[in-house]
């Protein structure tokens, strides 16, 4: 008596992933997660729109210098007469993309180093000493020095941020894996001759997924803040328009002294809101996972 294939797959999908149900449950019940998701999806939505539609060219002067917000120029214009709204719209794409790339690389490194040093005893010493060193490096001064020497691109900066910020995540995951490793189910997996890499990067990762998820969200937010600070200092990449680039240009063109607050407010506030939105989701999910 064998069940039909169709029934098979339906059942499998129904019962799969208790982890996903926790997330969905958190989305449905936690006010914190809802607000955070609303904010982040608003900005992601804007970023998607900006791929298809931006009212004015981003770099070209399209109006008078320092025009205050009006119906023609929603967020006013810059010193060169560029449209701030268009820049803000377009800037969301790259800000979010670079942040996500940096955050993803950070968590990739963090998970890799954390799981490996937690599970493999010989990897523990080297990786954790390396983490100690990385933790004592002051990120921003180092990025400034490197930025001054090499004029990095956005991708370079994302890689550098990942290299400088994986350590805290790796430490947390390592201690989690260390305690997981002594659980009997790991011994059962070993006795099934499951390959080591599979135990580490499937089983262990699945058990630390809540940690990884919250840490990754924070990593994205931190990366966005760091890159915008670099932009502001003037050593960050300015090859494409991001919110950080906007702030950099506004500062360089003395937007403040000219009273052009509309040039400073949209990018800065957007960075703050987006990063806060990510933090809301992360904290809300953390709370939901704790109750799991």
């Amino acid at each position, binding site marked *: *008596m*064998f*069940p039909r294939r169709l029934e*098979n797959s339906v*059942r*499998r999908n129904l*019962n*799969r992933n*208790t*982890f996903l149900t926790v997330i969905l449950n958190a989305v449905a019940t936690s006010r914190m997660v809802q607000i955070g998701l609303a904010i982040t999806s608003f900005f992601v939505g804007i970023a998607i729109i900006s791929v298809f539609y931006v009212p004015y060219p981003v770099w070209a002067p399209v109006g008078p210098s320092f025009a205050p917000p009006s119906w023609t120029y929603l967020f006013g214009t810059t010193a060169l007469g560029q449209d701030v709204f268009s820049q803000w719209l377009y800037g969301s794409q790259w800000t979010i993309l670079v942040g996500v790339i940096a955050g993803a690389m950070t968590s990739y490194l963090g998970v890799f180093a954390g799981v490996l040093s937690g599970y493999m005893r010989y990897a523990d010493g080297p990786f954790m000493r390396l983490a100690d060193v990385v933790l004592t490096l002051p990120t921003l001064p180092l990025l400034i020095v490197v930025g001054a020497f090499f004029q990095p691109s956005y991708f370079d900066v994302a890689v550098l941020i990942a290299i400088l910020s994986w350590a805290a995540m790796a430490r947390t995951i390592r201690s989690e894996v260390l305690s997981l490793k002594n*659980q*009997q*189910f790991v*011994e*059962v*997996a070993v*006795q*099934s*001759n*499951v*390959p080591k890499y599979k135990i580490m990067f499937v*089983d262990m990762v*699945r*058990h630390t997924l809540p940690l990884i998820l919250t840490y990754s969200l924070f990593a994205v937010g931190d990366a966005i803040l760091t890159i915008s600070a670099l932009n502001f200092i003037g050593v960050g990449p300015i090859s494409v328009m991001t919110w950080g680039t906007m702030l950099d240009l506004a500062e360089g063109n003395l937007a403040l002294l000219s009273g052009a607050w509309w040039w400073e407010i949209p990018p800065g506030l957007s960075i703050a809101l987006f990063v806060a939105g990510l933090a809301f989701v992360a904290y809300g999910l953390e709370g939901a996972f704790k109750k799991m």
Partner: protein
Amino acid sequence: MSENKHNLVELKHVYRYYREKGGGILSAVSDLCLSIGRGEVFSLVGESGSGKTTVGKMSVGLTKPSRGEVLLEGVNIKSLKQEARLRKVQYVHQDPYGALDPYLTVREVLERPLVYLKRVKEAHIREEIMYERLDQIGLGYEYLFKNVKELSGGEKQRILLARVFLIEPDYLVADEPTTMLDSVHRTETLNLLVNLRKKMDASMMVITHDISIVSLLSGRVGVMFQGEMMEVGTTEELLKNPLHPYTLALLAVTPDKIAKSKNAILEDNKHRDLSLTRTADYKGCVYAGACPFAFEKCRIEKPKLVRIEGTHSVACFKYPGESANLAE
């Protein structure tokens, strides 16, 4: 003994030490010899902390002995490749709640050994094997699609057994197979274990602290105390005619009338003092601190296992006899 000149599993003078947190060294098992023949059932009895689990894990190569060697079919278990070893020996954990990854489905639990150990390439053959085994342990095929989280303790224990019998090892260690279960499922699971073992014709070591379930098993029994073997014999010999004072004490706490009347002396067992026997340079019998029969010699010299009759051996100065080597 069978036509094969080697026993299936042999432990030769194995020791196992653990480093304690304070820097001291804890001896979990010391100078233990044991051999298990093909198709034999061996029960290992002792209180918690007596080193039973360590012996069980050493016999399947999950824990490495600090000294001495473990032989599988005459070959040192260390020299075997992991895959070859795991096909022959398996260990069933005592805690079904901890031994199954809650994120897995039953299907994954059962399919993993088939894929990575038995190397069954065809999906439909794997499925057939899994259905067959689930049927044998009395669970329907729909269990394959359940999450481990949804299972009760008894079901988890059965899945664990099904997993082992998919692998069909020559030798398996069942560590406290019934402890975590309620009394209804206890005998049921034990019977299942015994029946499945018979079908596979595998050797088995059953580790338990509960001497009363030993009567349900046939074969030999070993009684362990503080990492040493106190008494070995067939179930019948040991339960009908217990010799070692510790065995008597173990039987005294079971609701067995015969044993009880015989062991009234041992009622004051509670005030036992093990502080002396735990010191580093103590050379006497490990049970001397709690033994009501202990005399001068017990605290100075360690008694060796001596053969009383048949397979029945005991390590106690109360019984003179020729020394027995269980590894032979």
